[in-house]
């Protein structure tokens, strides 16, 4: 079975600045047909041809799943990141032909929930744009709490307030507004599910508090795409394909493997789906595990690595690829 996801040929139909940091991109199918239906929380992987590099970054779909004439994603510019968001902001213009993956949902709504309590931080609002649209269409019960640095960086806060009124609560860091999390979590009706998307610190905080207040783990859902972290270059032997590769400073191990012509599986490219799991045949050095998939035990064993986000420092690394 071929790896990765099924691809869609699209054209950029619009590029809209949303605020100082965020830009929205619209895609339509090149053949004019409808795009595949998706569900709230789904992402697509966008392929960026940046000179001789190909970058593959996942972004949440934020349009309504009820309208598939176009897909929309919003990207926050990261001036110190690896360059994917800068490429999108600088080089992607209406009319550009691009390739994106079919939607994949690793953050789907639990449709058994009596109520959906959503917590968003910053650009973590995007999956909730689609989820709230989906729930509102079906009369679902939800409440969204959204924290942002300043009112002007409250991406789509106005849209959400207009659509859903006081089902949306806003918190601005510069006004020292904080979610009263313990109170919020202890006052929910039975059968509520909790969803959180935002910076890692926020996700950990919410998960911790929910756990200590007795929320069962299966009612707490989170989405965190760890972007691959840059680091010192290192060499890897790929035992199955008989290749030796170098992973550059700004490159992920997965990208380096792909650049060598090997086609390993992936879905999220963010260390959460488990699809890229790879066995380590031998190693001499230190693993920098950045994933949320492997257990701590797996991390300690040094027998497995998630190449989409994890790195290595040392003399020797041989992988079963």
């Amino acid at each position, binding site marked *: *079975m071929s790896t990765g*996801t*099924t691809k869609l040929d699209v054209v950029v139909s619009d590029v809209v600045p949303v605020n100082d940091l965020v830009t929205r991109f619209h895609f339509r199918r090149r053949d004019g047909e409808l795009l*595949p239906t998706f569900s709230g929380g789904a992402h697509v992987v966008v392929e960026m041809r940046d000179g001789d590099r190909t970058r593959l970054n996942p972004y949440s779909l934020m349009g309504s799943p009820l309208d598939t004439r176009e897909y929309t994603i919003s990207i926050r510019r990261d001036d110190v990141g690896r360059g994917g968001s800068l490429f999108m902001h600088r080089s992607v213009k209406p009319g550009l032909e691009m390739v994106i993956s079919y939607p*994949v949902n690793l953050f*789907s709504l639990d*449709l058994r929930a009596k109520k959906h309590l959503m917590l968003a931080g910053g650009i973590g609002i995007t999956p909730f744009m689609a989820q709230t649209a989906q729930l509102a269409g079906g009369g679902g019960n939800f409440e969204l709490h959204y924290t942002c640095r300043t009112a002007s960086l409250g991406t789509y806060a106005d849209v959400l307030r207009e659509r859903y009124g006081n089902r949306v609560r806003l918190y601005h860091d510069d006004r020292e507004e904080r979610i009263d999390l313990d109170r919020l979590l202890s006052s929910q009706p039975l059968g509520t599910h909790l969803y959180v998307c935002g910076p890692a610190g926020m996700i950990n905080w919410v998960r911790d508090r929910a756990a200590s207040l007795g929320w069962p783990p299966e009612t707490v859902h989170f989405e965190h795409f760890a972007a691959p972290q840059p680091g010192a270059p290192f060499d890897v032997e790929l035992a199955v394909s008989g290749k030796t590769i170098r992973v550059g400073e700004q490159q992920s191990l997965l990208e380096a493997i792909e650049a060598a012509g090997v086609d390993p599986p992936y879905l999220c490219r963010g260390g959460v789906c488990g699809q890229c799991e790879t066995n380590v045949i031998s190693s001499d050095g230190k693993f920098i595990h950045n994933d949320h998939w492997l257990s701590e035990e797996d991390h300690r064993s040094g027998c497995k690595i998630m190449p989409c986000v994890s790195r290595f420092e040392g003399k020797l690394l041989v992988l079963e690829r």
Partner: protein
Amino acid sequence: MGITFRKETFRDDFTFKNSPEHIRRFPFPFNEDAYMYAVNIEPHVVGPKGSVLENLIDVDEHYVAEMQDRALVLAEDPLRCQSLPHMTLAGWDLLELLMEQQALGYPEHFTLERNGDRWRWINRPLGIDDTFTFGDTSTLPYGPMEYITRQSQGDFCILDQRDGNLWMDAGMVTTQADWSLDFDIGMNFFEWHAPVPLAHEKGIFTRALKFLTNIQQGKPARRLNWTMTINPRLDTSPENYHKWGPDRATVTPENVGDKVHLRVELQSFWRLPRSNGIVFPIRCYLIKMDELVTQPKWARRLHRVIRDLPEELATYKGLTRYRPTLVDWLSKLDDGSPTSPGFGPD
């Protein structure tokens, strides 16, 4: 041109038959002279013209008769079709999938017209012409899953995906090989495969679950499974064991060719877009020995496969009682010459 639908039964007088063209398109499951367990999952893509894979959802000459049989089963036992409340959206997903695929593959028999949410579905073989609002259950005579699976061959299990597991939360199951939806409904993947006695088998299930939870939209997968059934009975459910179980003692050297049927299940796995669930259609194909052996290659090969089947496997598939009679009968059609590679007839 279109398909000529047969008038036939899968119970009582058992008039089920395959036409000669349908014999040749039968999904014979053995590509060599021995059967081995294998993880035989492959992408579910369109196959050769004239095969059961010509369309991703196959409709064949048994369509009308199978739908009539399903209606009889449901009239006796409505619990063969169940959907937990949170699965309604997945039911709409399935309705869309099946209407789209049937209309695409068989435009002379099925038509789907969409006008925003207003959809019109024409099913000529069953004489249905309904207009409804997509997403609004009150505009259909049944829930969306029941509505469309009363018009689609094969069983359907709809699985909800959550907590890294799959939950059997909806289904239409009337043509199953000895398992029961009413028993499995609401169970997760490990529960409905329990008890799993051996640790290494557990590993297999964990891998299978991982594979299934990673099924992606736009990339369905499939596998074949097989067993044997006495008489062309579609409904071999545990609830009806008293009806079909005793049939196994009725096989004689005189009636083998007519009574013993190879039963092949084409299972496919699809990600549903709105609900993010997985649907698992299990399409059952039956062929009696007399029909199967009209293809000499299949006759020779089936003889070797059944003869050499390990005892535990034969027991597991419930063949023990009549295996000697069947092997004896098939042996007369095996001249010992080699069989060509591949599944198809020569």
